Each structure stands twice: as C-alpha cells, then as structure tokens.
C-alpha cells in the first residue's frame, strides 16, 4: 500500500481462499485503513443515529407509523442510541437519561415539527414537542398534516420490479411500432444486463454501497482475488466499459485520471486500479450515475453505428475483440459482477435470459482455441502426447465436444491444437457436458476447474486443459 493518503481500502492480491471466501474475514482487517473501519455493513461506527428505536417501526414514540416495513433488504434495522453503547452525541440528549422536559419557546417547538414528524430529533425534543401538542391546537393540526405527509414518502412497492418485465414491455412496444434505429442483437445482452444491475442498485443505502465484495478470477491457473466494495465494483465496470467508449470515440471516464495513460493501465485491471487509486475517497453511490450514463450512451452509439461497426476492434491492452464480441464480454462481466454484488448484500439474482446467456457461452467457446494456444505458449500445458501436429489453417483438427445443458445450451466443437484449425466431429477426442450457468461461473473464475461439475468422456488431459483454459478467460 502506498500510505500517501489516497484511499487504500483495496488491499493487495490476497490469494484465493476457496469458493466461500466472500465474507469470512472482517472487512478492513488487513489493516489498510480507508473506510474499512466501519463496524460492518450495518452500522457505520461513530455516527450514533439518534434514538430511533428499532428499524422502520413506529414513528415518533408511538405517535404513528411509517407504514409496514419494506422488504428485509433495506433498510437495515438500527439499534437505538441507548442500546449502542456509544457516547450520547449532544447536551440536548441528556434528556435521554434524565427525562426533564426541555423548556423550549413556541417558535422553536414549531420549527421542530418537521423533524419531529420524521422522527429526526432527540428524545428530549420529541417529548417536549409532544407535550406542547397537547396544549397548542395550531401546532397539533400542523403536526398531523406533516405526519400524514411522511406517509407519502413511503413507497414500498418500488423495491422489486420484476426484471423480466423490461424485456416483455420493450418487446411488446417494438412489435407495435418497429424501431427505425434498433439496438443490434449483439448489444441486447449488454442493454439487458446493465438495466438489471441498475435495478438492483436502485434502493441501496450507504450500508449496501459500502458492503465488501471480493472479486475473484484465475491467473496462470491460480485463483486470485481482490477486495473492494459494491461501489468499487461499479467503478470497475465504469472503468472497463470505458474501453469500448474510447473505441467508439465517446468520452473516456478515465480522461481526467492521473496515470491512466501509462502503458500498464491500458487493460481492464490496470484501468480499474488507476481509477481506484485516483480517488481520494472510496467510491460511493455517486459512481452509479456516470456508470449508467455511459452504459446508455454505449447502447445508443452502437445502435447508430449499426451492424457495420460490429467488426471495429476494441483493444483491451494485451488483446483485442471485435466490437460485437466486446459488448457481449461486457454483458457477461456485468452479470458476473452483479452476482458478486447481490451475494454481498444477500439478495437473489437470476442468470441472464437464455438467449443472451447462449451468446455469452458462444463467445467463450470461440475464445477457447486462442486460450489453449496461450496456455501452451506459457508452458502451462504440455502439448498432447500424441504428436502435436501442426494443423494447416482451416483444416479439421483434434477436437473436444463441449456440450452445454439447459435452456441456453448447445454444442461446440473446440479445436484443440491450433486456433486456426476447424473443430471436427470425426477427430473428436473428448466430450464435456456442463450446465450453462456452471460453465459461465467457470469462465468467470468463480469455480475452480477441478471442482466444476462436468460430465467427462475421453482424453482426460485434453479435458483438463480445456477446463483450465475456460477459467483462464476470467480476469478482474
């Protein structure tokens, strides 16, 4: 860590420690300072929320309610200050200990009515206001009106809008009036996944935004992970989506970030680190707006550039993908990280729509021959014991049949010995069967290859090599 005052809540690459690594260690334990000193995702230390007994229950000391508690996700129940053991914040709160009514003037009591209706004043003030209401008709009338108004702020139904509704509504619209400028089919998964994630973020409070998240992926056949927060994940998505924004001539979200122009900051991880480093404070909910705006502009821009731009190369630093694949890749990453976030706040999250998932799997299958070749080059896999025959470009080569089960499934023949070869059923040496979502978790580096629930038949070495190659597609 640098210790130079930039925010440091992200500690180093700290070894993968199994599938359940999410929250087994207290956040911030690594001593990196930053805002990890929170008492956990529930209650930031030291703020001592003024005595507001028990979550979303009754409003001012039994004087009416905020309505039924919303879904359990939000808000987290707060302990009242009396129970928290924290020092009471203010002289005015001494009333909590010695219930002597405060002697406040009529004007001050009147000015407190709004705060009172919102249960946002001290216990002593609450008591003083309520005593006053017994004897002052005009204040009592106003108090009643204001308390009813508080009820209007409450919108519990906003918590859960069925994510599938978006697709259904948009499709029904588009069938009634065909668009003149459609969203290309290869951008639809990105459009859908960013919308789903955005809906998940909709009602996050500070506790959720700062909940710890562990990003996991594979590097050189070894599991790797990195800690951040929910907001840090969105900053990561913003930084990496920026690669496509830049390729399309849109503004780079890292344009103002120092060090972002360095050669080692060109890839996804480098850009993310640069973005994180440049913030003096940990990312907050403020990162949602720029991320969402950028994802909307990407969808809009690729709709206008249309299908002929699909082949435009998008550079990720060490490698490049054609635009349509890069958009699929970003859709995939968006889903994977949305799931990381959902896990962190203990909320369910569904896999993408089958036809979108199918496209993501297809992209991974198409990237596999190159990933296999890279593993050979890096010495991570021995060239097959059978003669590693060089296959002429376009000729059929030794192949593995990848069978993906489920609604998003299909079959792919993966040429094993050269990216230039063509998969061949006649030269099939192995057959692997996997569930679609399991395959994606493997490709995301969330499941170690040895533990992937895969049905296997044939050349075991080839199978292991392919499973590791799938995991090697993952990155931060």
């Amino acid at each position, binding site marked *: 860590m640098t210790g130079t005052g930039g925010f440091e809540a992200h500690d180093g690459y700290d070894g993968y420690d199994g599938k359940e690594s999410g929250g087994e260690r207290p956040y911030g334990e690594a001593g990196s300072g930053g805002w990890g000193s929170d008492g956990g995702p529930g209650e930031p230390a030291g*703020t001592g*929320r*003024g005595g*507001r007994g028990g979550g979303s229950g009754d409003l001012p000391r039994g004087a009416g309610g905020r309505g039924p508690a919303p879904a359990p996700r939000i*808000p987290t129940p*707060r302990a009242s200050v009396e129970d928290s053991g924290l020092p009471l*914040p*203010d002289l005015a709160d001494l009333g909590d200990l010695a219930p002597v009514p405060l002697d406040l003037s009529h004007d001050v009591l009147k*000015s*407190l*009515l*709004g*705060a009172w*209706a*919102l249960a*946002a*004043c*001290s216990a002593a003030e609450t008591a003083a206001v309520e005593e006053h209401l017994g004897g002052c008709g005009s204040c009592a009338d*106003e108090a009643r*009106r*204001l308390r*009813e*108004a*508080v009820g*209007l*702020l409450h*919108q519990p*139904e*906003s918590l859960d*809008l*069925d994510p599938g*509704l*978006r697709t*259904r*509504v*948009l499709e*029904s*619209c*588009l069938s*009634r*009036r*065909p*668009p*003149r*400028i*459609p*969203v290309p089919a290869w951008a639809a998964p990105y*459009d859908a996944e960013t*919308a789903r994630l*955005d809906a998940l973020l*909709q009602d996050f*409070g*500070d506790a959720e935004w700062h909940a710890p998240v562990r990003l996991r992926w594979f590097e050189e056949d070894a599991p790797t992970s990195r800690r951040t927060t929910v907001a840090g994940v969105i900053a990561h998505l913003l930084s990496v989506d920026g690669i496509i924004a830049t390729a399309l001539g849109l503004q780079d979200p890292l344009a103002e970030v120092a060090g972002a122009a360095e050669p080692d900051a060109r890839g996804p991880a480098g850009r993310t680190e640069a973005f994180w480093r440049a913030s003096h404070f940990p990312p907050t909910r403020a990162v949602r*707006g720029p991320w*969402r705006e950028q994802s*909307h502009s990407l*969808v*809009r821009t690729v*709709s206008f550039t249309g299908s002929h731009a699909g082949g435009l190369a998008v550079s990720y630093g060490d490698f490049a993908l054609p635009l349509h694949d890069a958009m699929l890749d970003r859709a995939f990453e968006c889903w994977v990280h949305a799931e990381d976030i959902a896990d962190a706040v203990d909320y369910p999250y569904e896999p993408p729509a089958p036809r979108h998932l199918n496209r993501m799997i297809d992209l991974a299958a198409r990237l596999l021959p190159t990933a296999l070749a890279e593993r050979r080059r890096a010495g991570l896999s021995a060239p097959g014991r059978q003669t590693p025959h060089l296959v002429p470009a376009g000729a059929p080569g030794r192949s593995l049949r990848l069978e993906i089960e489920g609604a998003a499934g299909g079959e792919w023949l993966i040429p094993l010995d050269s990216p230039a070869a063509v998969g061949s059923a006649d030269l099939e040496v192995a057959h692997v069967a996997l569930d679609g979502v399991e395959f994606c978790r493997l490709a995301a580096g969330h499941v170690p290859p040895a533990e992937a629930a895969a049905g296997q038949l044939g050349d075991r070495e080839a199978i292991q090599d392919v499973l590791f190659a799938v995991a090697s597609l993952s990155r931060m």
Partner: protein
Amino acid sequence: MARKDVPPRWDRKMQQRLARGEAAALGETYDRFASLVHNLAHRVLGDEQAADAVTREVFAHIWEHPETYDPRQGPLRSWIAALTHRVAVQRLRDREEREQPRREELESTVRRASVAARADYIVHSMPAPLRAALDLAYFQRRDYRQTATDLGVTEEEARRRLRLGLQLLSTAHDAGTPPGYRGAV
C-alpha cells in the same frame, strides 16, 4: 427521490429520440420511469399482474405517440404519471363494472392513487435543497443535526427545510386535478 434533477432539455431530447424511432431511447425511458409507472398502477389496482399490464400499455403509448407529450406543459415525468393514472383508473373502472363493488370503495382507491401521484410530482419538483434534506432524514435516517452537518447548514436551517418540505408534500392531500401535468393526455 434520490435522483438528481433532470433538466427539461433531457425531456425534449428524449421525445425527439422516441419520435425518431430509436429503440435505445425507449429502453432509457423505461429505465427512468418504469418504477414510477408500476408503483402508481399498483396503488390503483392493487395487483401485480394488472400493474404489469398498465406498464405495458403506458410504454406502448409513449413509444407509439411520443408527439402527444408537450414539453411546454410540464416535465415528461408528470406527463407519464398522468398517463399512467388515466390508464390505471380506466382499467380499474372496467374491472369494477364487471365485479360490482361498493362505489365508495372504488372512489377511495382512485383518490388514494391521485394523492400518491401528486405526492410523487411534488417530491420531484420541490427545490433540491428541500428534497436533499428529506432524503437524508427519511431515507438515510439521519436526525436533523446530522442532516445539518451533511448539508453544511445550521441546525435551524435543517429544521426549516424538513418542515417546509413536508408542508409542500402535505398539499398532495388537498383535492385538485391529478398531478402537475395539465395538458390533455
């Protein structure tokens, strides 16, 4: 409530993009307003499926007839709220005609929904400092002293904003035409 104020320019541009037949604009409109539409519809009809159906109908109207929105008459948000209210109430009346309920029950449902729609409008059009104070005190559960600190204002000013914000909001209970947008939908 947490959303930043959206300049009217956004509304005009969105209308142009919808009129141009940009599918991406439809998606953006949905992302911004779907929960408003669904909530209002749910308040009127009290059931998920019916709210889904209203949502479909409202966005179909926005997509097929974006020109019926007049930016000079008010924000897009209010237009969509009014449209939703109309579609939902229509659906409610159709349903109740078939089911013959007590008339006053129907009227009170409609009235509650109108109040909710007005409240939404008021929250989204009140001065930003008032909204920020309510947001902190209600949604973030800060007391008024913490609210004052967060906003960098005096405690007195925080109390004033909370009271004034709620006073504005309470006018949603006053009878009147449904939400802000006065133009014909």
